[in-house]
């Protein structure tokens, strides 16, 4: 809590705090501030209009409205604060005892207090008023009773989560008694949530107090109370509407200020609500200022479907800007399968989402580079220039995407058939019957045994493998030129994985050259099986590119070599001698924090071959011959 009360916190709760303090001040200084006695009647001037003596006019008995408002604050706040304090004292003790000792004491404290919750609050209040008669004392008693369970529950919950913490254990080990532990060690650490509960309670107490007074069952006339003033003015609202509006305004502004203060408290106490959104927007503005697009160099070769050049994607977080994709260039040719490989966080999925324009919003931004796509009708389209409606025509129709988790990637509340039909109708003017028929044909095509039944089933009724087949059917529904498969088999078990890979290969073989695949994965076994060419990504950059046979035979980047060494090889498994059963190599260290500035090669801190030169300039991605590229200064030594 101490850190919560620093200057930034005070600034954030500034105006609600100031407003609440002002209202408190008015209540305390009422005798000084009020120009008149709040209960002195002046029947001759009843409903008098505002003048120098009575700035807000006079009420139905000729009493000064301003004075009654000022004294009303005193009544409302004293009832509310008093009852909240009583409720807090009893509730906190009940919660502490119930939570700390448990068992019978829990039953005797918490469950007894909970009885209050059996009644709707207003009804319980009315019941007590009937029994004891209206008045300030009854009001305070009722409100105290009503708010005890809130405090008891909050304290109870906090005690349960605090009582086994180390500092409590330490106090116990020092031989402190239960009371010392409860009030000395536990209570100070749960002050935050209780403070939130207290301000909530004060606001609710004011609402209830004014409500009961409004019914004529709370504060007894002629004492001034905002609720009573509204009750009185209601009868004369036609002649003197302002007499009604002033107490309403005072009441609403008071409750609002307290609620705002309460929200700010909660933000400060609850770490999950963060409050660091300001950092996010500052960072986002900085990123929007970075955008710079250079024109792509040269024309796209006719066999190329997708040409990505110098792609730069940034993800904005409250604490910094992540360089998710950093100057990535590659091409995908007609009918080719390009695998993009890397650890989690290497930027491979973000590359796919950047191409589709599906980055998380508003955090993800493409700030530079070019993505050109050869469409079905033979045009070359620059995707980074397209607006949302134009991009929508590309998605699904020209470029389709399948994802890692078929369970969460399909909407659980819609039938599989509906979701495929929707994909078809997004791009084809087909009526429902025709689209259904096409959806059925597609499901059959991807090897679903009973396609007619599958159409009418919900995603959770299918197995994981069937769900991914349905996803593939959906992706293929408009015969895209490029399929981006983002870890499509990661969530599946091994046999199903093999079936899905086989399906994807078969689909590509059917019409050679019709569909290219960009296959995002971290699984090198899948790469060996699927890919024609491989891009290895690290820290948002491509570190090596080669065709699949060469990269497995002779990696030209230490990171690629590290990845290959960390995969069990079938030959080793077959061998029985001890040398083959050596432990798998791992790459030391972890993926760097891409939000921080970096000098030199991103992999250098984890690289056994790193030189001083590696840590100075950013090594370029160089052509090493035979269509291969590497981002290592020492590639020739590998």
């Amino acid at each position, binding site marked *: 809590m101490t850190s919560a009360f620093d200057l930034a916190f005070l600034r954030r709760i500034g105006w609600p705090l100031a407003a609440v303090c002002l209202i408190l001040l008015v209540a305390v200084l009422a005798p000084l501030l009020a120009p008149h006695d709040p209960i002195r009647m002046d029947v001759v001037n009843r409903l008098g209009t505002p003048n120098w003596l009575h700035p807000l006019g006079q009420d139905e008995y000729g009493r000064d409205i301003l004075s009654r408002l000022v004294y009303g604050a005193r009544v409302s706040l004293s009832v509310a604060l008093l009852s909240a304090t009583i409720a807090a004292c009893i509730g906190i003790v009940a919660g502490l005892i119930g939570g700390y000792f448990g068992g019978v004491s829990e039953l005797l404290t918490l469950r007894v207090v909970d009885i209050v919750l059996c009644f709707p609050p207003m009804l319980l209040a009315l019941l007590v008023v009937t029994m004891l008669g209206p008045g300030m004392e009854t009001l305070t008693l009722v409100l105290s009773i009503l708010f005890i369970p809130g405090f008891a529950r909050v304290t109870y919950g906090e005690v349960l989560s605090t009582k086994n913490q180390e500092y409590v254990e330490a106090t116990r080990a020092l031989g402190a008694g239960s009371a010392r532990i409860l009030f000395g060690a536990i209570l100070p650490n749960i002050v935050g949530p209780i403070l939130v509960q207290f301000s909530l309670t004060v606001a609710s107490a004011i609402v209830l107090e004014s*409500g009961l007074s409004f019914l*004529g*069952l709370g504060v007894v006339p002629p004492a001034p109370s905002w609720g009573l003033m509204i009750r009185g003015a209601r009868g004369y609202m036609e002649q003197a509407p302002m007499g009604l509006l002033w107490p*309403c305004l005072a009441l*609403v502004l008071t409750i609002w200020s307290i609620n705002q203060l309460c929200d700010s408290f909660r933000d400060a106490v609850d770490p999950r609500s963060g409050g660091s959104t300001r950092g996010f927007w500052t960072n986002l503005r900085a990123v929007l200022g970075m955008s710079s697009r250079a024109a792509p160099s040269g024309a796209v070769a006719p066999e190329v479907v997708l040409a990505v050049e110098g792609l730069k994607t940034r993800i904005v977080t409250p604490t910094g800007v992540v360089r998710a994709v950093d100057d990535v260039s590659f091409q995908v040719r007609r009918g080719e399968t390009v695998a993009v490989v890397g650890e989690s966080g290497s930027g491979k999925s973000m590359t796919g989402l950047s191409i589709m324009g599906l980055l998380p919003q508003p955090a993800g931004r493409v700030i530079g580079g070019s993505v050109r796509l050869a469409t079905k009708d033979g045009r070359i389209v620059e995707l980074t220039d397209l607006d949302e409606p134009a991009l929508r025509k590309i998605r699904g129709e020209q470029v389709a995407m399948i994802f890692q988790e078929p369970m969460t*990637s399909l909407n659980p509340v819609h039938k599989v058939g509906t979701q495929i039909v929707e994909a078809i109708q997004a791009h084809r003017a087909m009526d429902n019957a025709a689209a259904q028929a096409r959806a059925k044909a597609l499901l059959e095509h991807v090897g679903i045994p009973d396609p007619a039944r599958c159409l009418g089933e919900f995603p959770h009724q299918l197995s994981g493998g069937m769900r991914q087949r349905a996803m593939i059917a959906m992706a293929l529904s408009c015969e895209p030129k490029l399929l981006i498969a983002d870890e499509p088999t990661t969530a599946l078990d091994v046999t199903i994985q093999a079936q899905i890979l086989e399906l994807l290969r078969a689909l590509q073989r059917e019409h050679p050259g019709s569909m290219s695949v960009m296959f995002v994965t971290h699984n090198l076994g899948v790469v060996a099986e699927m890919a024609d060419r491989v891009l290895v990504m690290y820290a948002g950059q491509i570190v090596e590119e080669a065709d699949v046979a060469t990269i497995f035979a002779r990696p030209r980047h230490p990171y690629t070599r590290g990845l290959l060494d960390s995969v069990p090889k079938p030959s080793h498994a077959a061998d029985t001698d001890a040398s083959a059963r050596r432990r798998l190599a791992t790459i030391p260290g972890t993926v760097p924090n891409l939000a921080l500035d970096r000098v030199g090669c991103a992999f250098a801190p984890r690289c056994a071959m790193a030189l001083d030169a590696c840590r100075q300039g950013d090594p370029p991605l160089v052509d090493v011959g035979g269509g291969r590229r590497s981002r290592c200064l020492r590639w020739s030594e590998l």
Partner: protein
Amino acid sequence: MNYLIRRCLISLGLIYVVTTLLFLALHIVPGDPAELLLSGGGVAPAPETVAELRDRLGLNDPLWKQYIDHLVRLAHGDLGTSFQDDHPVVEEVVRRLPRTLELILAAAVLALAIGLPLGALAAVRRGRATDRILSGFASFNLSVPVFVTGTILVLVFAQKLRWVPAGGYTPLATDPLQHLVFLLMPAFAISVGLAAVVFRMARAAVLDTLERDWVRTARAKGLSPRRVVVRHVVRNALTPVVTVLGLHMGSLLGGTVLVEYVFNWPGVSSLLVRAVEQRDYPEVLGVVLVVSFLFILLNLVVDLLYALLDPRVRHA
């Protein structure tokens, strides 16, 4: 199944506790209950009247016998007779209860109709001006007590503009249109604050749903933003919102007291206010008993519904 039985037993226990407490309510208060019953208005009652009432209420019996009699009467649906007109309390409660429920239901529907679309809009425009204005407005609305809303509505729409009557009631059978006209303002008064609650829930639920993978899938298909939001976001966010709204229905039961008073709506709550003013004990106790039962029952239904929707609750 286990959860279901346990939850039902707890509710039964609560109903028993409420029954007993309400029986004791008369006896906890210091002084003679009969005298207390008759001392409305601060005038000391005549001794013979007190004695007659003691006899009538069975107050001369031992406490345990009175308690048993009390439970037996309740089991027969007897809530006693009103002091004012000697009518059985249960008749009046049963006559008025549907009107209160109608009011709550209408308010809930209105709140959903207002809060849900605005909540979804704010979530989609998260952090921008639309969101900030709507969220600010919602937090303001949450700070306006329902009787203030009601009174201002009467001032503006009944007194100044003269569009609707200031309050009253016509049975549905007599004149359906007039019935709806009378229903509109009280229902709207309740729904203003409730819509703010729905707004907050809807905004949170839609924000949560927007992050889901199937939304990305829907966008990857090339669906229009409107279709994505309506079919793949709001449709999914609806379930938690409606469930939590159900939770609030219970607390609304108490909240109608002020609105029924402001608009002269002849539901159970205005019966209660009248009874409290007259210190008509049997009527007060009867209404509190019935509404508390309903309150416990509603909470039970919502809890069970919740368990049905989320299997994890059942096994907790």
